[in-house]
């Protein structure tokens, strides 16, 4: 009898009520906005003139590629998303979109973003975008995230690649400048995500995700945050004395880096109670401002030079 009932359920097709908003949520719009911004800076600092239509195409393709990565990430992680309060409201755990629908959506967007960028703009950029999606979905999401506490350190490379893709789209080649942007985002990722993981460690522990605070404990994580912040600040300031970016960037980077360092020291010092929680939340929030302001400085310098060439 139970077999018959089971078959009856299987034969009933599921009709989706998913709205456009649910599919937009699959694209991780907040992550996408940071990707668009960093890619835009990569495009702006490239030493060539890029036609606005090609610039728009590049940014659109990178944004859609990032969205595809987000959708494929949610497809693969729907089981652990349902266990964490931060992610339980995503479209798949809420039952708005099924896993096969998310997979089809993600694969379609990934294919079209890579092919469009390759055909219309540049194949090196298209190949780099394909690699970025592959790295985020296969290397980070499938291989690293549930396996090692270094997941976000290595996986951070995927989030650091958009400005490199944009530079490649503009110039058709690679150079030191986009790699410097890559390194800044790469070393920014661990302090940013470990600060989040510190005040969400219960969530990660419940889902069985081996984030550093879950595996090594909060104190070891605080030390790692501090060490990575020191490296980040050095890496972010270095392009100034090395002559790649100018003094306006260098001084801004020094000031913002000092802020990051102070907050990271506070995270290291305060280990108990509300003071510790406040310090962690402050570092997490400021790290977003830090990256945004650093890249905005580079973008504004380019814009200022375009408006008043004598500045440069």
């Amino acid at each position, binding site marked *: 009898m139970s077999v018959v009932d089971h078959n009856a359920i299987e034969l009933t097709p599921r*009709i989706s009520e998913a709205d*456009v908003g649910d599919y937009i949520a699959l694209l991780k719009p907040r992550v996408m906005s940071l990707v668009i911004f960093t890619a835009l800076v990569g495009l702006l600092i490239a030493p060539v003139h890029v036609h606005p239509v090609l610039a728009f*195409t590049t940014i659109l393709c990178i944004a859609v590629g990032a969205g595809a990565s987000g959708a494929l990430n949610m497809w693969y992680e729907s089981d652990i998303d349902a266990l964490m309060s931060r992610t339980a409201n995503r479209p798949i755990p809420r039952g708005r979109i099924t896993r096969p629908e998310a997979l089809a959506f993600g694969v379609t967007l990934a294919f079209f973003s890579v092919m469009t960028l390759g055909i219309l703009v540049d194949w090196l950029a298209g190949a780099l975008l394909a690699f970025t999606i592959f790295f985020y979905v296969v290397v980070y999401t499938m291989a690293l995230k549930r396996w090692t506490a270094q997941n976000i350190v290595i996986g951070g490379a995927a989030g650091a690649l958009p400005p490199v893709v944009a530079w490649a789209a503009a110039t058709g080649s690679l150079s030191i400048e986009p790699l410097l942007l890559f390194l800044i985002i790469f070393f920014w990722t661990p302090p940013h995500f470990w600060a989040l993981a510190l005040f969400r460690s219960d969530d990660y522990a419940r889902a069985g995700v081996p984030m550093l605070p879950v595996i090594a404990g909060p104190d070891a994580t605080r030390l790692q945050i501090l060490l990575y912040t020191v490296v980040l600040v050095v890496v972010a300031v270095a392009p100034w004395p090395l002559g790649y970016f100018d003094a306006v960037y260098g001084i801004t980077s020094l000031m913002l880096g000092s802020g990051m360092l102070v907050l990271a020291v506070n995270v290291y010092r305060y280990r108990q109670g509300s003071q510790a929680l406040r310090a962690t939340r402050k570092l997490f929030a400021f790290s977003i401002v830090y990256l945004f302001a650093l890249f905005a400085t580079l973008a504004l310098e380019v814009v200022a030079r375009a408006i008043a060439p004598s500045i440069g």
Partner: protein
Amino acid sequence: MDDKRKPDGIVLTEAQQKSRRRRSIAIALALGVLVVLFFAVTMVKGPAVLQRPI
């Protein structure tokens, strides 16, 4: 003939019909953007659109 007979097969609810229509419009818009994008880049690049060194 009974005109009020229920139709065979799956009958979508109003919510399902509305969400399907919105999804269809979104797909149409995305395809439209893709067409406009290819047209615009072809205009910008001119004959160079055929030069795609790998």
